[in-house]
């Protein structure tokens, strides 16, 4: 791990307006004065109860949300938020869904085509990859989605609750794959499973009541 910062949060606050109107007046404050530095190469785990703002924090880091106050400085060249089942269409084959999922995650078309045999083999779905996605069990869907995500390369990888995918054997395989994937990257991982975070991360923060409660 390197002391050079990969990511800095400076007094970040985030709140959102409740309601669909342009000028909705009720607001929900998610965090206040959140300051944090993630070093280059560091793996940071975030845990916390439901509604603590873990996913909102990842969305802020991914840029899909903007902080209400404060500043987020991302020094990394590329950032990827790994999420499951992005835009999956049940009538389409596993192959088409894997390509679509990969494109959403930031792959170029030729990259994902090139990686597809490896992804399919990792998910253990070689024999059914041309079958419609609706024929897959939820475990098979998650395995395919996870396999696409874990082949991604980015400087900063944000992972939201995708470490408990599939059966025991696949979970072990996927943890190993994540470890390999994160070897050269900085990562922020959100999970309820503290044991998994301890296993994968250099440090873990607990988010609660609008701020960091413990480390």
């Amino acid at each position, binding site marked *: 791990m390197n002391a050079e910062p990969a990511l800095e949060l400076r007094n970040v606050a985030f709140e959102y307006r409740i309601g669909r109107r342009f000028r909705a007046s009720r607001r929900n404050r998610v965090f206040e004065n959140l300051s944090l530095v993630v070093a280059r190469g560091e793996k940071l785990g975030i845990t916390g109860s439901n509604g603590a703002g873990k996913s909102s924090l990842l969305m802020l880091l*991914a*840029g899909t949300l903007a902080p209400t106050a404060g500043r987020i400085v991302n020094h990394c060249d590329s950032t990827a938020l790994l999420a499951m089942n992005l835009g999956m269409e049940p009538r*389409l084959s596993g192959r088409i869904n894997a390509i679509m999922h990969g494109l959403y995650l930031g792959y170029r078309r030729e990259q994902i085509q090139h990686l597809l045999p490896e992804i399919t083999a990792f998910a253990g779905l070689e024999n059914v990859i041309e079958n419609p996605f609706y024929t897959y069990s939820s475990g098979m869907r998650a395995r395919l989605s996870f396999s696409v995500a874990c082949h991604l390369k980015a400087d900063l990888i944000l992972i939201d609750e995708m470490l408990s995918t599939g059966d025991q054997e696949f979970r072990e395989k996927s943890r190993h794959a994540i470890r390999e994937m994160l070897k050269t990257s900085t990562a922020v991982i959100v999970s309820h499973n503290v044991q998994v975070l301890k296993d994968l991360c250099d440090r873990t923060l607990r988010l609660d009541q609008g701020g960091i409660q413990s480390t």
Partner: protein
Amino acid sequence: MKESLGDRLGWYFDLVRFKVYASLVAESARTYLGFLWWILEPIFLIGVYYVVFGIYLSFDRIEFVPLLIVGVTSWQWVNRSVMNSTQSILNKANVLTKLNINRLIMPMTDLISDSIKMLVILIVVILILNVMGYPLNARYSYLPLVFTAQGLLIAALSLWGALLVPFAQDLRYVISLALRALMLGSGVFYNLDRIPATLQQTFLMNPVASIIESYRKILIYQETPLLFHLGWTTVTALLFIVAAVLFERSFRQRYTVLLAT
């Protein structure tokens, strides 16, 4: 090395191209007749309108059938695309809340799929008109112009439909009602001759009416389309498209909250 603009545009191109392909395949996989519905749907509508207007209401002009074919098929493109767009951002909430991508990608992809369908339908319409005695003529060279103006008009309407509906879903009903009024006021079942001479210019200020009339001029009457109106439609549509892009940029993160809550 930071991701360059070229890389980003290349990725958007890959994404849109594949999404269009996937949406067309998914659409055909949902039904037994698949792509045939592209042709069957307008044929069925033309049949219904012909029975109502041509037989019951005795719109007995000699060119009523070709007039109806051109009107209904070009209207269907407007109607289908604009209505589809009202759901295009909402339907992709699980993607758009997680990825920092331009929200307009979703309606644009739907629009491109619908445009491909319209191209196929237009070819079928041209073949039918040829069989009915309306041959290919030099005015066909204007067809890409009319198609482009219509595509841009639909893009402008669809992008704004897609952008505004997430703020207030009531707008879906408003848009649906407005489309019905637009259909009746755009000459889908009648042409310009039916409008009193004093009102024709006002009628043609409706861009959908001038586009339908332009198609008819080329495909049926072998005349030059309404170039001034097409130019005006194109420029106005482009301005609305630019405004939609700027609006999306300003409110991009607001959509994440709207879609997540």
